[in-house]
């Protein structure tokens, strides 16, 4: 016997609920997405932007977290067991001292045959006992010479000179201990890559944020107030736009070198210079955009509401300039990394001890390194390309995502 479906009140209620749910899901599918979410959705759908984003996240982790796991320091030379060097000098010659403090502090002068070395570091006088006789010697302009007992007349008698020469694992090929080998000072290339990333990536962000702030300020003033303010600011922008960036940066770096600025302080100056040379382009973009936005209806409405000037600029104009600016900033990050690395390559960036990718590549100016030790300079170049490429992919993806005309 078949049970007939009777429309009981319960069932009717259930049906109604079902319909409502269906309606809701329909509303869901056509729900208006906010522009921000639309941009995000478009951005995350683009494959290249995702590649760029992942690359950069990996690079950031590599640069900022990586060094915590590295057994080496940024400027820690990898020393091997010191070489024991023993040389005998014939009469008439003298020995050149590599580093006087190295030699005498350990009392190793004379090597095995000698005993009772006394040496006075302040006047360079010393003596030792050889075959029962005392031999007097002194340091004469970094050369070791044998003298009489008053340290005055120089006898070019024979003498032995031996020392523990500190020796470093120079240009070590990549192995399990040093994944990317070592450079000319025996520094671990892999570790220096991480530290170099810190400089390049931070510098880029700081400069871009600073120059955007400056650009918004001046571009906003010029675009909003027009007239002579615009004329004045735009002429300054024109001038900055015509300054040859690279030669000027070289001059500024020379000035820093001359003024004796060293270490990280130099980094801050370089950031300031890059900012000063870079804000003009952003100011131009902001001004153009604001000139256009100023004529829109909603700005007339803002005017009619009697909003204050600063509120109009900050709340109504600047947010509308942001999409363009964000794209410009992302692409700018890449070019700043390139500029900084070029400066470092020309040895006008940070000092040798502070690793940057550019400085690491500059080692290849030596033809020997260029041909025989690719691990010293190629990884740094690859890092620069990856970072710049990452920023460019993201900037491109953002531009497409922000574009209201885009179909996909």
């Amino acid at each position, binding site marked *: 016997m078949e049970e007939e479906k009777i429309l009981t009140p319960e069932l009717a209620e259930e049906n109604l609920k079902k319909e409502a749910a269906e309606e809701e899901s329909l509303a869901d599918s056509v729900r208006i997405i906010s522009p921000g979410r639309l941009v995000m959705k478009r951005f995350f759908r683009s494959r*290249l932007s995702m590649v760029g984003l992942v690359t950069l996240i990996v690079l950031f982790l590599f640069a900022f977290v990586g060094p915590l796991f590295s057994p080496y320091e940024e400027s820690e030379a990898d020393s091997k067991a010191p070489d024991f060097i023993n040389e005998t000098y014939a009469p008439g010659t003298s020995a050149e001292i590599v580093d006087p403090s190295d030699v005498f502090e350990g009392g190793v002068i004379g090597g095995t045959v000698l005993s009772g070395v006394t040496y006075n570091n302040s006047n360079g006088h010393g003596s030792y006992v050889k075959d029962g006789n005392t031999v007097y010697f002194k340091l004469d302009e970094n050369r070791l010479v044998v003298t009489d007992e008053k340290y005055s007349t120089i006898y070019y008698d024979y003498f032995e000179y031996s020392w523990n020469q500190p020796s470093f694992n120079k240009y070590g090929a990549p192995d399990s201990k040093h994944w990317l080998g070592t450079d000319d000072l025996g520094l671990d290339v892999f570790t220096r890559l991480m530290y170099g990333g810190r400089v390049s990536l931070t510098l880029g962000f700081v400069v871009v944020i600073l120059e955007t702030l400056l650009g918004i300020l001046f571009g906003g003033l010029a675009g909003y107030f027009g007239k002579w303010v615009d004329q004045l600011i735009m002429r300054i922008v024109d001038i900055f736009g*015509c300054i040859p960036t690279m030669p000027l940066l070289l*001059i500024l770096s020379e000035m820093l070198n001359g003024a004796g600025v060293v270490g990280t302080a130099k980094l801050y100056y370089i950031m300031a210079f890059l900012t000063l040379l870079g804000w003009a382009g952003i100011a131009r973009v902001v001004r153009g955009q604001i000139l256009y936005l100023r004529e829109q209806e909603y700005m007339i409405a803002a005017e009619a509401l009697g909003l204050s000037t600063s509120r109009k600029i900050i709340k109504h104009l600047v947010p509308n300039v942001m999409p363009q600016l964000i794209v410009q900033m992302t692409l700018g990050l890449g070019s700043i990394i390139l500029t900084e690395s070029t400066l470092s390559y020309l040895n006008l960036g940070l000092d040798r001890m502070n690793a940057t990718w550019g400085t690491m*590549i500059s080692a290849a100016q030596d033809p020997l390194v260029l041909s025989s030790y690719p691990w010293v300079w190629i990884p740094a170049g690859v890092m620069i390309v990856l970072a710049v490429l990452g920023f460019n992919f993201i900037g491109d993806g953002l531009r497409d995502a922000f574009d209201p005309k885009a179909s996909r």
Partner: protein
Amino acid sequence: MVKYIIKRLLLSILIVIGVSLIIYLLIRMMPLNYFDTKYAAQLANGTMTQADVDNFKRLSHVLVEYNVYADRYGWGHYATNELAEAALTGGQKTICTFLSYVEGYANWFWEALHGNLGSSFKFQDTVVNVIKDNMWVSFGIAIVATVLQFAIAIPLGVTAATHQYSAFDYVVTVLVMMGISLPTFFFALLMLSIFSQRLGWFPLSGMNSPGKIFNSDFEMALDTLHHLVLPVLTLVILSIGGLMRYTRTNMLEVLNADYIRTARAKGCSERTVIYRHAFRNTLIPVVTMLAGILPGLFGGAMITEQVFGLPGIGNKAYQALIEGDIPFVMGYNVFLAILSVFGTLLSDLMYAVVDPRVKINK
């Protein structure tokens, strides 16, 4: 039109004055002394003493014409030191005051107006001559690179746009993006390492093989070409990306225009639509861009020339900068500024020429 050009020219002069003033002030603050850097090695290894160097400074200051010239722009502080100045001025030391900066700049500007940019310490010739003699090498390399760049980038850009989101589009986009992201010096070094050192196909540096005797000019030209393959290749690969993407964007914009739909609707073949209707309009911004970069080609590619050891103006300027050849650095930078101002002007005028819709009547 004439009024517009005059207005723009006046503005350009203002810009050049602004740029040169900034550069002048910075260079005056540059702590390099040409004679100190030149004789630094001799001083270090003991073949010369500081007194000798000072003597050189004094001598060259008095005897050599170019230094006297240089001093008239207020460079004297750098070319010579206080000692030499004291010898000249009878014990009086010149002090760098704000006024001396203004006066120095005014002098420099007055002479520059008369076509005299001073004389280079390093190259022992007037700055104008050094620029004139060396800019053609740079221009020659750059123009070849630019022609190649346009010849490759435009077809790539057009094809990528007509096949938007195809595999070709993706591959080309990724490849040219890599080109944009490469640091010039790194790529140049990579080329040298692979093609010069490993494979030995191309020479390491310079324009001609040193010490080689050529039987004819043709042979020498071939040798030069052989030397220039890598630098030109570097310049082209690095600059293709920007232009290709520019072309692609413009082409896409044009392809979305209504008149293209009309052309398709009236039954034009795809070929006609793309090459007769779309492509010609894409060319407008491209030609404008070409006009804009053309003057800049005389300025030289500093990094590329430095890595490949080419005797172009960029390399000369780099050497001068490192060694503290103040008058040349100043002259070169102003030369660059003039080129860039001229480029902007040219590109704006070109826009009016190639696009009949644009009427300049401001």
